[in-house]
């Protein structure tokens, strides 16, 4: 859409805050929306959700099953669901206190670069961390956003005909004990952290959400 200055700008990304959504439901919704986006029936979207406790497995090898450290009865006792996804990659934990973002964005025609897309997602989260006075960064070869040697946010992306799905999981007030159930994304010698753990205080989920939205719109403008 041409703006008054004659510079081509994108329509603003539509944000849908869905609250607490079971993983399977979010997955089905994304599949549906990816098709809608491919067909041009919807514009670029950012879904923001929170999942009940779930361990999600990838498709490669055993999908990271060997990275579950806890026996299945422990998982059951802590009401952690184990879910096999269609994505690549290793095992990941999602749960309360974690801000999960699923951008459904068409990278055509001018942003067809998967590395750039991942870097952009990392940039959004690095800026959110900076808002809280936290210096977060990238670690070469390890996708995600890191503070020192601890992972603050995980990123895993799927692209079909240049329409994105899956996305990022930012630990806001996540109970980090749950990560002890797994080796996050197969990276064994690095830890996991959250905004609350880094700040040593509680962090308001709505506040974090607002910051994610603002920086997402800036970076993906």
């Amino acid at each position, binding site marked *: 859409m041409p703006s008054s200055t004659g510079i081509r700008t994108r329509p603003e990304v539509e944000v849908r805050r869905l609250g607490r959504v079971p993983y399977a439901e979010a997955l089905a919704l994304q599949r549906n929306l990816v098709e809608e986006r491919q067909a041009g029936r919807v514009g670029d979207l950012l879904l923001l959700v929170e999942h009940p406790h779930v361990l999600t497995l990838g498709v490669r090898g055993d999908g990271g099953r060997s990275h579950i450290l806890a026996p299945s009865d422990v998982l059951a006792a802590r009401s952690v669901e184990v879910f096999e996804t269609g994505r690549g990659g290793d095992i990941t934990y999602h749960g309360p206190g974690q801000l999960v973002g699923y951008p459904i964005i068409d990278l055509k025609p001018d942003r067809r*670069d*998967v590395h*750039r897309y991942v870097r952009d997602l990392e940039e959004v989260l690095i800026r959110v961390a900076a808002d809280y006075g936290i210096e977060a960064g990238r670690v070469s070869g390890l996708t995600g956003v890191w503070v020192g040697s601890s992972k603050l946010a995980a990123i895993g*992306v799927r692209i079909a005909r240049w329409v994105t799905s899956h996305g990022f999981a930012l630990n806001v007030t996540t109970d980090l004990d749950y*990560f*002890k159930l797994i080796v996050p994304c197969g990276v*064994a*010698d690095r830890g996991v952290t959250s905004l609350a753990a880094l700040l040593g205080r509680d962090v308001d989920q709505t506040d974090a959400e607002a910051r994610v939205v603002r920086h997402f719109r800036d970076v993906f403008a």
Partner: protein
Amino acid sequence: MSTEVVMPQMGESVTEGTIVRWMKKVGDTIDRDEPLLEITTDKVDAEIPSPAAGVVVEIRVQEGETVAVNHVVAVIGAPDALLAAAAAQPAGLDAAARTAGKQPSTAPSPGDARPVASGEELARERSSPLVRKIAKEHSVDISQIHGSGLAGRVTKHDILEYLEHEGLGGQTGPAQPRAGDRIEKMSVMRKKIAEHMVISRRTSAHVHTVFEVNFSRISGIREARRLEYERAGRKLTYLAFIIKAVAGALQAVPLLNSSVDGDSVIYHKDINIGVAVALDWGLIVPVVKRADAQDLPAISGAIGDLAARARAKQLTPDDVAGGTFTITNPGMLGAQFGMPIINQPQSAILAVGAIEKRPAVVADAVTVQTMAYLALGFDHRIIDGAVADTFMSNVKHALEHWDPDKA
């Protein structure tokens, strides 16, 4: 007519991709734009649609394999390709695949009239910006590297492997003594230690993790019990508490009390903790047997006895055999923490740093506390970081919450 499907260029700096999954198999019909395969590069998965309608006549790259961008991964034939081929050659699918796969080949044939470029030109022309950047940074001539990519193209993997091996090749020769240097033969013990350390480095995938532990509580308990122990002719050392805490943690996390045997892991029933004792003439590791079954006074007695006999050169072979885990104590000489080498065939080793008073935050106030760093070296072949850290947090918890009645 058939169409080749290539590994797509998913971004400027993307040079290769891994096939995650084929959604179609040879013989399946497919529509144009219907998903054919899924690839992954870093943490990005992409679904690749078929560039043409027809039949999958050939799949050239298997799931899990990584190939360079533009490498042909599959061939889509005309809808009747398989039937025609099958009619001409009853050999079936394989033959059909081969026939159909040959026609559109882009590899230069012997009769190709194109002028032959020099290897270096070709390599420059064909390597990605990333590979060229790495080559420039390391002052490497790309034409010297064997390329495994399409038409001999040098992939990121090729150049990284080349750099790694070059690094080893660049070693300098043995040290030459100069005038005034003293030459001394190694003792048998020194040679054994040397061999043991190098073998361990080569055998295990060493990783280290460091925990800070507050020993103030233990310090208080030691003070309270000092006289009682002295009257019995014993010393209640920090080491005794650490051995007891480690024994408990090994029971909770048995993988740390194991050994690798070929492609098996042996979980040891007994918890036998070796304690590295520095001697004027080297190092020896006597073993506290069944540490899990002994109480603190018994462990204290065992350490005192073993250390005394080690210094008097009176250890028996049995005293140094059967260890399943080792504790070393670089803190004795003031080290904050050490990064120990695993005592083979064990899987983990704990280094105790200096136990000293430091400012520390307790209940939001900076106070003087007795603190130390405990560093664990572990074999990442079988022990993942989360397991090692679970073990360490177990040790830390035991030491920081010690029951004064159990001393």
